[in-house]
């Protein structure tokens, strides 16, 4: 469980990047954090593995106060996948990249081999095993960086913009990997601008704006709220927009519901 209580953080420029954040994430939840650039999303998740420590308030991860432990200890519990894979990747081959953390954590070689194998298959990287990560495409590098974290099996997985450069098939695969891990009991936090990805796959959404949380709840309720979408300058999901333009009483992000509504309208059910 993650519990964030009254957390404030400033980079020293007179602006609070985080301004009194309260957030609770239960074990094995799957949630997204969305918001405009500079809303504080990345600053917030850097608090989860202790890269940043709150200047006010407190962050508890699995009962441990992040101020009272090291990043190295937290890293085993919280796996953070950064936005830009170029900032993470460094090994000569994909295989070495994947085994790096495992070796550092002192796992036995058979276990390392098993987990690397799993990751190569799960992320469809088997063909690239011996390739340098730097010769891969943007989308492929992204998968290597995800795989390198998931391989060491952290209890809490935090992904910053995991869908950039991924096509729709890969996004669907990523979603099913995340859902699967989540069903196995992992807590998964996804920071993203990809509102359609959130609408399709993530049950809970936290909306941030200017260092504050302005909405938090079930995705299908939050993403259809015009006030929230406008206040956070997020582009709404296309179906929410369609709902508003159709004047639906209960706007939705689900295609089946919209189609039913349209059928009713055409039958003369509404204005």
């Amino acid at each position: 469980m993650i519990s964030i209580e009254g957390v404030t953080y400033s980079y020293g420029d007179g602006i609070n990047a985080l301004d009194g954040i309260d957030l609770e994430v239960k074990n094995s939840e799957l949630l997204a954090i969305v918001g405009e650039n500079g809303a504080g999303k990345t600053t917030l998740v850097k608090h989860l593995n202790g890269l940043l420590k709150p200047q006010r308030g407190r962050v508890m991860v699995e009962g441990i106060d992040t101020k009272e432990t090291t990043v190295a200890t937290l890293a085993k519990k919280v796996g953070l996948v950064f936005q830009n894979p170029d900032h993470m990747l460094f090994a000569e081959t994909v295989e070495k990249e994947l085994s790096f953390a495992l070796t550092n954590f002192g796992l036995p070689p058979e276990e390392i081999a098993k987990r690397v194998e799993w990751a190569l298959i799960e992320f469809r990287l088997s063909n690239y095993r011996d390739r340098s990560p730097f010769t891969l495409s943007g989308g492929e590098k992204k998968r290597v960086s995800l795989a390198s974290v998931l391989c060491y099996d952290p209890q809490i997985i935090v992904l910053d913009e995991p869908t950039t450069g991924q096509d729709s098939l890969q996004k669907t695969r990523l979603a099913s990997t995340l859902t699967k891990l989540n069903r196995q009991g992992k807590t998964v936090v996804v920071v993203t601008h990809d509102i359609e990805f959130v609408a399709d796959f993530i049950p809970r959404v936290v909306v941030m704006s200017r260092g504050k949380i302005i909405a938090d709840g079930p995705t299908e309720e939050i993403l259809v709220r015009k006030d929230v979408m406008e206040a956070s300058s997020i582009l709404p999901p296309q179906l929410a927009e369609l709902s508003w333009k159709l004047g639906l009483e209960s706007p939705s992000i689900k295609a089946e519901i919209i189609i039913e509504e349209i059928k009713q309208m055409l039958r003369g059910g509404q204005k």
Partner: protein
Amino acid sequence: MVLAIIEVEGLCYTYPDSGTPSLIDVNFKAEPGEFVLITGPSGCGKTTFCRALNGLIPNSYGGDFKGKVVVDGLSTSSTPVYELAQRVGLVFQNPENELFCTTVEREVAFGPENLALPIEEIAMRVEEALEIVGISHLKEKSPEELSGGEQQKVAIAALLAMKPKVLVLDEPTANLDPLSAKSVLELMHRLNQKNGVTVILVEHRLEMVSHLVDRCVVFEGGRIVADGSPREVLYSDMVSELGVGLPKVVQVSKRLSGIIGEPLRFLTSDELASYVRGKVP
């Protein structure tokens, strides 16, 4: 008939040390002033195709190159890169990798300076490029302190200062937030409409761009597998089988077509909503 500004014939290409070809018998033509969207699953050859359009392939990459690529009358394999750079500008995914000067103004002046143009001409081009892109107010800033969207606009302005006839953009919005992405895509639309620049744009986010383009080309396995108006292509059966991310409005329209027995081909929520409202008894 209008002379094509881009003409690609029988293009086959394999990267050095790669066993499999990245492009297989690609044939493509674009007329001056066209706005062409290129899409397709990752690894389908889109990026390789972009690199072939400004001569990076084969000139910088080497590899096995067959067929011909002619841009604005110049064959890319026999024309020096500085010559091509004045006709075709290429914008990459990650603007951080392209920018290196201390101010935006210098960044944009770098290209024309290297052409050894007169100082007044350079100043004029910089001024104009910054204005078209809408970033004149940023000219004293360091590119490093800008947001991703602003950086991408600097990269675009730097290319415009070379006065290219063709702009090729390889997923220019991949690292941008949706509002910045929208603004870069609308900028492309404006450059195309007002300045007559031919635009070749690689993009996954079809819901943001399909209504702005003249044509949509789909790559798969190194080949072009669909080429037509965005409505034809997005509503073709083949494209949905490929796993191209169809916009939600397209998905809903397709299913509605089946239900009401009338072919619907909407690209935006506006189009679909006004159709439904017009039909309501």
